[in-house]
Each structure stands twice: as C-alpha cells, then as structure tokens.
C-alpha cells in the first residue's frame, strides 16, 4: 500500500513538473526600471520647454510662427483674423549630443522690445521618470543666451538703446519637473529666471516666473496642451507702465493641439503672447486674451537621425 502511494506521489510530482511548462522558467527574468516615454511628443510644450529630449545624434529642424491678433483693433476680417501679420517667426536647428543633453541655435524675428534675435540653447535631463515610480518625476534644466542684431535706438529710456554690445544680451535659466500620470495626463512645473541686460526705464532686469503646463493625450498621435506662466513682476514696475504708457502686463497663457505624424510633430497653438522665446514672452507679454489679442500659430518639428547606420551596427 505504501509503495503504491509513494509511486503515485512520484507520478504526481513528475506530472506537475511537466505541466509547469517552459514559460515558467523565465518568470523572474525582467525586473528593471522601465523609463516613461512620451511625456510630451516634442521638446516644446506650447511655447516653453518640456522634459523631452532629442535622442543621441538626432537633428531637429524647427519652425515656429505666431500670427497677428485674432480680434481687437488689429484683428478681424481685414487681416483675416491675424493671418496677414506675423508677430514672431523662429527657425532653429537643435541637436542631441546624448540622450540627455541637447544643444541648439536659432534665429527669430523677436516679438518684444528687441528684434533680430540669435539664440544658443542647452538642455540637460538629470532624471527620467520610471514606470515603477523608482524615479517619480523627470527633471531637466534649460538655459539659453540671446543676442539682438538690431540697430540701436536713439531713445535712451527704451530697451532697444544699446550703450555697448552687452546690452543686446538676454538669458533664461529654467528647471523643468514633469510627471506623466496613468499614460494620459502629463504635468509640468517650470520655475524660470529671466535676465535681460538692458531694459526700458522702470522695467526689471531680473524676473522670476513660475510656469505650469499640461498635456492630455487624446489618442496615440493627438494631444491637447495648455501652458501658463506667472511672472513675479514688481508692483512698482507694473504701476509705472500702466500710469505713464498705458501698458498692462498679462500672464502668458497658451493652448495647443499636438499632432504627431511619423517624423514630424505639428503643434497648432493659441497664445496671447506675441513672441516665441522665453526671454520675451515671459517678461514682455502685454496682450490680453480677453481683448481678442490672442493669435494662432504653429510649431513644426522635423527630426532626422544622423549617423544612424554607424551607431546601429555597434
């Protein structure tokens, strides 16, 4: 009896070992931290930077355009809702040195006090969010330097009057913290510091601003964007501009639709700010959504892979 039961037991164990199957052999093999991809589709959100980076050896050719006011004094049907005008245009080449470091150069028209702007930029990503929350957020820093090529003005109280070359310079330093929630919603906080070497009388050289942005993924290739910056401009400066020039500063608010089509990312934007660069749209937005002074625009990004063959064969 005991022999029978022992044999039976052996059979059970042996069938168990068989039925256990080959797929169980590798159950414990993959336990790495997977990085969260596509917090945004592009390195920009609406106007400002995102925590997305170019990959190593990728070249990004970018064109951005902002049209004139949709409504108000300069909008309406006579300018076809601003389409006849352009407040700012930017053309840029940006390049990924590594998966976490990118640099770029650009030329833009300039939609604020200064025009004819040449920009050099750098962005570095320290952290990338992982799916298991080992790293809960993505963290990047962005910086740029912008020089204006315009002719110096004669009005000594204006921003566009240059005593020497350094008056033409503007800088932005920005930290970007992003998190993607449940694969649909991405949020970003962006504390930003803008420094302009030369500004108009009673304007501020140094300005701190806090940016907040979000993306709601509508489908695999479509996302809704919103972005808001709150600049901490001194009340004294605000009052002076209001009293002497009738200028009110507004906080830049941008909305957009992000469409990815293979190698292109196309964003349609609606913004109250006239300019594209952080150096200008954060401190120099004097146009209001409520008075029809918003405009449509677009960002086009086309990414090329350089040295693809060489890197891949390694």
């Amino acid at each position, binding site marked *: 009896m005991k022999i029978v039961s022992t044999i039976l*037991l052996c059979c059970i164990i042996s069938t168990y070992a068989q039925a256990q*199957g080959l797929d169980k*052999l590798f159950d414990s093999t993959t336990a790495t931290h997977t990085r969260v991809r596509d917090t945004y589709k592009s390195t920009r959100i609406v106007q400002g930077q995102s925590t997305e980076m170019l990959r190593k050896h990728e070249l990004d050719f970018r064109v951005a355009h902002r049209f004139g006011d949709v409504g108000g004094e300069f909008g309406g049907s006579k300018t076809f809702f601003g389409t006849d005008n352009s407040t700012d245009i930017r053309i840029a080449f940006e390049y990924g040195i590594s998966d976490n470091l990118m640099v770029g150069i650009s030329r833009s028209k300039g939609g604020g006090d200064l025009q004819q702007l040449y920009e050099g930029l750098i962005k570095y990503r320290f952290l990338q969010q992982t799916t298991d929350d080992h790293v809960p957020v993505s963290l990047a820093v962005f910086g740029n330097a912008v020089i204006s090529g315009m002719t110096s003005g004669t009005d000594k109280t204006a921003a566009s009057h240059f005593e020497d070359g350094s008056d033409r310079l503007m800088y932005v330093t920005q930290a970007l913290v992003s998190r993607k929630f449940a694969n649909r919603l991405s949020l970003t906080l962006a504390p930003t510091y803008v420094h302009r070497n030369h500004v108009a009388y009673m304007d501020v050289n140094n300005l701190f601003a806090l940016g907040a942005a979000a993306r709601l993924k509508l489908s695999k290739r479509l996302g809704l964007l919103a972005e808001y910056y709150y600049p901490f401009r001194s009340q004294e400066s605000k009052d002076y501009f209001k009293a002497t020039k009738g200028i009110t500063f507004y906080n830049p608010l941008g909305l957009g639709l992000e469409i990815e089509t293979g190698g292109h990312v196309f964003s349609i934007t609606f913004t109250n700010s006239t300019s594209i660069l952080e150096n200008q749209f954060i401190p120099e937005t004097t146009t209001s959504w409520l008075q029809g002074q918003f405009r449509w625009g677009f960002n086009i990004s086309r990414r090329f892979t350089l040295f693809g063959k060489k890197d891949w064969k390694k």
Partner: protein
Amino acid sequence: MKYWLLFMTAWLAVSTADAQELYSCKNTRLSFFSSSPLEDIEAKTDKGASAINTKTKDIFFKVPINSFQFKKKLMQEHFNENYLESDKYPFAEFKGKINDSPEFSKNGTYPVTVTGTLNIHGIDKTYTAKGTISTQGSTITVNSTFNVRVADHGIKIPSLVVQNVAEVVAVTVNGIYTPYSK
C-alpha cells in the same frame, strides 16, 4: 524508511531527467524586417528568452518588446508607443510544439516545422513555421524565419505612413541552447 529512500530515489530520477530534457537560451536573437516602397525598417534584439523540452518537444520564446533596437531612435519610440504599446503589452510570447522528431541525442541538422501560438500586442494567433534544429554535443541551435501580418495582431498602420511600413514583416529567430540549470 525504506520507502522514503525509494521515494527520494524516484524523485531524484524524475528531476534529473527533467533537467536533461530542458534546454534554454537566455540571449535568443530576434530581428524583424519590414520592406516597403519608401523605407526598409529593421530592428533586432538579443534579449529573448527561450527553452526547449526535448522529450515533450515543447518550445517557448519570450521577448521584451522594448528591447528591440532600431536604427532610428524616434522610430523605436513610435514602435513602443504607437504600434506595439509596450507599456500595456511588454512581451511577445510563443508557445509551440515541434511537429517532427529530430534526434536531439545525435549530432546533425534537422529541418523541422513548429506549430504554436504567438502572442504579440496582446493578440494570439496560431502559426506553423519552418526552421532548422542542429545539435552539436550538448548544445542545440534553432533558426527560423517566418512572416507576421501586423494586422493579425491588431496593429494599425495609419494611412499617412502606409508607404513606410510593410503589412507583412519577416521575423528571424536564432537561439543557441544549453542544458537548463537554475
């Protein structure tokens, strides 16, 4: 006590027999190739895990989708994000049986067919694929190439890139197996 001894011997016999029947390969190479009018796309990985049971002739493959490497990193991102959705479906798996009876104990190369279920993008489909099995001493080599129609696995190609991505991609598998040990 005697029976315990008998039991232990029997159990040992069963488990050792199992170990010898099991062959595994933890760096199985997989690649796929899509050829279309505008673009040839190729991706490869060596992170596949695979095992063969020479007695039951079961064969198994499992590969992490996000381990596939592309020439263009942007393409790799789109592959994971838009097409294979590797967050939702992190692995492709194949569970099948070898239809023929290759002599695993004898050195040689045997043409075989394998029938089984391939799960990609969360969708199962039955395939019968041709391949070869070679044995050399205690190693077994498996090679196979078969076609996968992407639509069969619920992967949609938008009309915008229909010229760039083929409807049918050729998948190549290559694994060198050694006796399984924990």
